[in-house]
């Protein structure tokens, strides 16, 4: 198991989240950042847009420079319809749930907030159950 790259990547994600929070004064969860760009409450769209531009640039540069994992492949049997449905559920669920892997997961759990830990466990369990159900239906066996 290669865990060095995931660990380095995780440290960078943690540093980026910390710095963004310290500079913006807000909890920088990605789903919240996107949602508040779509429907801004006050005039503070600027830092959110800058963060996303930085995110895309950082990801693009890492791919260009061949840093880290680099791999990209589609999970078995997932076509465009599945990605479309997944997008709808992820968008709706993260707003109804108040956060995603970064807001609840990294920032919330990092800050030791119990509610974030509960919501993170819920979406992890739901994700695991969904993958297991998918394998069961498409391959006729959980072990796939």
């Amino acid at each position, binding site marked *: *198991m290669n865990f060095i790259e995931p660990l380095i990547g995780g440290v960078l*994600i943690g540093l980026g989240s910390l710095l963004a929070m310290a500079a913006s004064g807000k909890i920088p969860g990605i789903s919240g950042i996107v949602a508040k760009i779509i429907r801004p409450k006050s005039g503070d769209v600027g830092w959110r847009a800058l963060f996303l531009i930085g995110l895309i640039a950082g990801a693009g540069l890492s791919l260009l420079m061949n840093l880290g994992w680099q791999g990209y492949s589609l999970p078995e049997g997932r076509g465009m319809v599945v990605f479309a449905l997944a997008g709808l559920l992820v968008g709706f669920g993260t707003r109804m749930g108040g956060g995603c892997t970064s807001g609840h997961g990294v920032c919330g759990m990092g800050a030791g907030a119990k509610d974030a830990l509960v919501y993170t466990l*819920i979406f992890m369990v739901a994700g695991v159950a*969904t993958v297991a159900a998918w394998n069961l239906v498409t391959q006729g066996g959980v072990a796939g």
Partner: protein
Amino acid sequence: MKSFLILFSGALFGAGLVISGMTDPARVIGFLDILGNWDPALAFVMGGAVTVFGCGLLLLRKTGTRICSTKLPDTSADPISKRMAVGSAIFGIGWGLGGFCPGPAIANLSVLRIEALVFIPLMVLGMFLAQRSFGLDR
């Protein structure tokens, strides 16, 4: 200075997503496949990120350090809400279907991956619908 720091923090985040392997949908699905062919490596992403964020936050609080004289946000927990619990479950189902959560999907826009181009407009639509139903409280 503040704008530069935010841009830089976004770049760190985006680089972290690519380097860790979070931008690879099949790998994320492998991480969620605990009951099948489990690839536990991505646990180190969350582990590393939570540790760095948590220790950094403690350090900032202890030393009273402010960046660009910005006050740190309130990170204390709220009571568990049924609405947010159900929403998190819906998010988890979507995550398990495609292997994308919001950050990695956006990171994949950098190289215009077709799955991200399909996923993101529908994610935005889903957010819009949820905001219309539940408001903008978080």
